[in-house]
């Protein structure tokens, strides 16, 4: 899977309350959650983000709560991929499970600027700036995790497996 998109950049320790504040957790609707995506980190984000955009962030992205509503809000907002120096464990797991592509790459975080156009190859883990042509290598996911993401999440993956 390859994506090209415009970058929105965030700092370190972006917690799940910043990604989707608890005051909006009385719904499970992805479109409704997307309207408040990243609101407490950047109130202008939900209005600016477009389908195919890419979030780039520093360490420990998605720390805090186990709410799957966090990656659901990001995916619902149309974000194609999140690249971070590192991810908090539950967010990492949830992203794979719902089929939100994520990659860990500190060099990419350091080099990429807000607004840059970036290409991501999920299979190889290669990230390319379409501004400078620079490339960075993230560690690609193990095969079964890539397959889960490609199927759009764990439930589809399990159903697909049991159908065979």
């Amino acid at each position: 899977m390859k994506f090209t998109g415009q970058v929105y950049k965030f700092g370190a320790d972006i917690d799940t309350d910043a990604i989707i504040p608890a005051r909006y957790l009385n719904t499970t609707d992805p479109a409704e959650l997307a309207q408040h995506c990243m609101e407490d980190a950047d109130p202008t984000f939900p209005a600016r983000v477009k389908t195919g955009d890419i979030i780039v962030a520093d360490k420990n992205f998605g720390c805090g709560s186990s709410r799957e509503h966090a990656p659901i809000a990001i995916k619902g907002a149309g974000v194609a991929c999140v690249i971070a120096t590192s991810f908090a464990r539950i967010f990492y797991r949830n992203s794979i499970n719902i089929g939100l592509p994520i990659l860990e790459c500190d060099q990419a975080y350091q080099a990429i600027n807000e607004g840059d156009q970036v290409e991501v190859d999920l299979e190889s883990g290669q990230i390319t700036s379409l501004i400078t042509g620079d490339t960075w290598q993230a560690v690609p996911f193990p095969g079964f995790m890539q397959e889960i993401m490609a199927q759009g999440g764990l439930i589809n993956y399990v159903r697909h497996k049991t159908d065979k």
Partner: protein
Amino acid sequence: MGMTISQKILAYHAGKKHVEAGELVNCRVDVVLGNDITSPVAIEEFARLGTGEVFDRDRIVLVPDHFAPNKDIKSAEQAKVVRSFARQYGIKNYFEVGQMGIEHCLLPEQGLALPGDLIIGADSHTCTYGALGAFATGVGSTDMAAAMATGEAWFKIPESLKFIYYGQLPRWVGGKDLILHTIGDIGVDGARYMSMEFTGEVIQNLSMDNRLTMANMAIEAGGKNGIIEPDDITLAYVKERAQRSYNLYKSDPDAVYAEIREYDVSKMEPVVAFPHLPENTRPVSEAAGVNIDQVVIGSCTNGRVEDLEIAASLLKGKKVHPEIRVIIFPGTQQIYLEAMRRGYVEAFIEAGAAVSTPTCGPCLGGHMGILAKGERALATTNRNFVGRMGHPESEVYLSSPAVAAASAITGKITPPWEIA
């Protein structure tokens, strides 16, 4: 090469004699937990799986505690989804308002979390049960859905960090201060993906309520789980609650740790975490004088009998500062009843505090004590992120019940020894 207690529990549930850090394993789980926020998503995903049945109706625990008693119509609809699911599938351990408590206070109390268990919960503070010598970790709703159907989940075997606490624990210093100090030391991602094993003479002498507080906040250092080896204190706690058998594990003497840290607690003060991360810790004497608008005592971190006992000991016969609100949340109905029997509730109300039915409520900015723009709370809860208790421009400071109760009287952050 030896294994840590966490690795042993995972190995057992994977049907293996030995596991190594980094290995991916598929495990049978003993308990699958969800609440009123995470379960509705899991129930949708469970329906999409189409298995039509749960793996074991006695091993799924559903606790509507976050926005319950229902705070608004949408929350009521979500709670209804959980209730209907519980009825449809005959889920034994569904706790309706009236029996409901804050999930991580409730499960240990009810004997539903036991030593040696492998527990996953769609709530990040599921790590609390590590205090009983269980491997317990938070997951998302999809993992909960898959586990409700299959009774299984996949895990990467974690490395472990060992923390050794030694010395004489000073008066007013407890589990909350030990864990805040530890998070302040290693940072909010200091234990990312790893097990946190709490050991040493201080832990061996620590009460179960204080141990639960420590394990509860392992996630605040990014930990996969927090764990304490079971001992006589554990057995005294579980023996009258357990309705099934359980296993006691200990780390091997030659277990390998990613790192070992030692803390001399003898000169430690109560700790306060400043906004907006739990790692921003300072000794209470350096926090003294910060003005507050609200005090919250309770939550899955500090809503147990000993927490209320220490708060009552400070508030009894005193008055809450006239310019602040104090809200106290016993963690479960049993804790509430015990606090009534012991006269704590009377002491709180006479002091001018509000006492609430159990709920996660204000801890996550849900209801029952939301902050306005510019307001500041001191809370015994676990997170002080931006907007955590209300308006994005409000602030939360974290402390023990002792510091919170002392500060409730003065209206500013206050060391407990200045009140007692």
